[in-house]
């Protein structure tokens, strides 16, 4: 029983990280139909930005978060302006182009910072564990779970309660008509892409104390995050949240029932089956296209 409870918590912790990464991807994919394979590299940039701020400026993870968000969003904005913007009419080519951007970012970091693993200290405020009976929860992981939910709520508010969100939803539904109403679709796309990249940067900053920070850390994460987005349903925020909990918990449960690797294989097999029978995901959004 203790094992199961602790494993459920581990699954939830993994789900919160997946959600943070997948959220940015879901917005970018949902809004523009762009499969951003450079998203993992945005996470990696966020992690390195945190490391740089801590090492050279002595800023801890929590105060660093706004800086990381802005800097990675700026990188995303440039990438969108220079490359992605020219490819909206060729969605499958964006897979290839963003993969190329991923290679460039990864190599740039490897050349600039070095290939060795970097260490980032977690915040002192959140060290230690909270124990409820046999259940031992790391405070930092608890914080990440709460933070990811806050980001989800903020994104949801942005999409549904602000003027920008309304314009974005209009562009998603019908780009040509909304342009007739004076919405600058190009600008909306740029800002959305930058916001998605910024979220990836935040995710990267938060996982630095949990993962080792290396230039290749993004590649594995992007595949997982992308599966979350597809399982959740095209561009659905709630779907992405549900899918990340589902995948996180399934991985955690399978890994105690069988073993880590076979558990992951079982989850992948489940995902393949799900896409086969529900290609529009668990929570498809209703849009007229």
């Amino acid at each position, binding site marked *: 029983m203790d094992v199961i409870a602790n494993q459920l918590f581990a699954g939830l912790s993994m789900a919160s990280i997946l959600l943070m990464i997948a959220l940015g991807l879901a917005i970018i994919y949902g809004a523009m139909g762009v499969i951003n394979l450079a998203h993992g590299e945005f996470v990696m940039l966020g992690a390195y930005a945190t490391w740089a701020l801590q090492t050279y400026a002595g800023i801890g993870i929590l105060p660093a978060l706004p800086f990381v968000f802005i800097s990675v969003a700026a990188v995303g904005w440039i990438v969108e302006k220079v490359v992605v913007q020219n490819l909206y009419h*060729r969605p499958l080519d964006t897979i290839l182009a963003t993969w190329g951007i991923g290679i460039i970012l990864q190599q740039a970091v490897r050349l600039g910072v070095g290939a060795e693993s970097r260490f980032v200290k977690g915040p002192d405020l959140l060290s230690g564990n909270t124990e409820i009976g046999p259940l031992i929860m790391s405070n930092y992981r608890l914080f990440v779970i709460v933070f990811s939910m806050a980001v989800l709520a903020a994104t949801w508010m942005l999409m549904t309660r602000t003027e920008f969100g309304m314009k974005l939803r209009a562009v998603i539904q019908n780009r040509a008509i909304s342009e007739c109403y004076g919405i600058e679709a190009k600008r909306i796309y740029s800002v959305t892409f930058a916001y998605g990249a910024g979220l990836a940067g935040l995710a990267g900053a938060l996982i630095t104390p949990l993962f080792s920070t290396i230039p290749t850390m993004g590649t594995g994460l992007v595949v997982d995050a992308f599966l979350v987005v597809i399982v959740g349903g095209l561009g659905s925020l709630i779907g992405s949240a549900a899918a990340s909990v589902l995948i996180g918990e399934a991985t955690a449960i399978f890994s105690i029932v069988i073993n880590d690797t076979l558990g992951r*294989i079982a989850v992948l097999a489940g995902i393949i089956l799900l896409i086969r029978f529900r290609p529009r995901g668990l929570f498809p959004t209703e849009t007229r296209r």
Partner: protein
Amino acid sequence: MSSKFQYDLVALVIFALVVAFGVPAVMNYDGFELNTFARYLALAIVSMALSLSWGTAGLLNLGQAATFGMGSYAMAMHLKLRASDGLPDFMAWNNVETLPWVWVPFESLTFTLLAGLLVPAFIGGLIAIFMFRARIAGVFVAIITLAFLVAFQLLFINQQGHTGGQNGLTGLAQMSLFGWIVDPYSMGFYNLVAGCLVVALAFGVYLTHSKFGLILRAIREDADRARFFGYNVANYQTLVFCISAALAGWAGMLYTLVLEFASPTYMSVSFSLAIVIWCAVGGRESVIAAAFGAIVVNMLEGRLSDVFVEGWHLILGVIFVLVVMFMPRGIYGLLSESLQKLRGIGRPRDHRDAETFPNT
């Protein structure tokens, strides 16, 4: 016989002559250089296999590396068994006492060669039936094949006692084909790989210009319309997936012979995407262009990594992004467009010649 078919035949003959006679002469018949180039030629086969499913039928298979890996492991298993008397060394390290039943038939070369083609074709076919019966298309094909690739590689690394795990299969014997010991640094071996590539390309050219290829292109343009004409779309898609997988397996077998080991990195996501890159750079619409793309990119990789020991990956990434942005149809598209312009000067432009390519 259409003029396009003639162009392809001419291109194939030139390609074959250059690969068979030109390249070895330029390389001064040096064993090491020939081995390196034979590696590029083996990779050209897998790139050309992808162009069949991606360029002709519009199915982006991100799991091509899985079928490539199956072929390369089939060959490596055979050579490993020949190199060791009885049990291969790594099995003993992993407390596997008897030879697993999967390994037993690989004692025979005939079985190995067949398995290297048929196992990938069979598994590729299973995935294809699974996907295409449900009319899965576009991005979802890419995602399912990608997820399959990740799962397959994990499984392979996990079964260390049977597959050598992360280390792969090393310390292989040299293949003996009808009493000829295949030395990967010899001219004879180079000719073998080059011959395989030319045969595969001839097959690919024939296929794309046959009625089968025509129907595949129809499906790529509009699957529903092809369906209304009475074609069983799923069967055509499955068949092209099988053919592409078998060719990838063939390339994998040759690759093991070239490098003399098999490693699970052949089944990695980045290797699979690299295949897509080669195919895109060359031009996915033509099998010859795709093969050419693989050779060019790999040669460039080789040269760049000599000159810029650190930054060559960066340069490659930049080149690739530029190709996707400004040459969406690859080198092939560039050539055929300029050819069309040249012809356009002489006579009024014939619109039936202008080929449209979909946005998939």
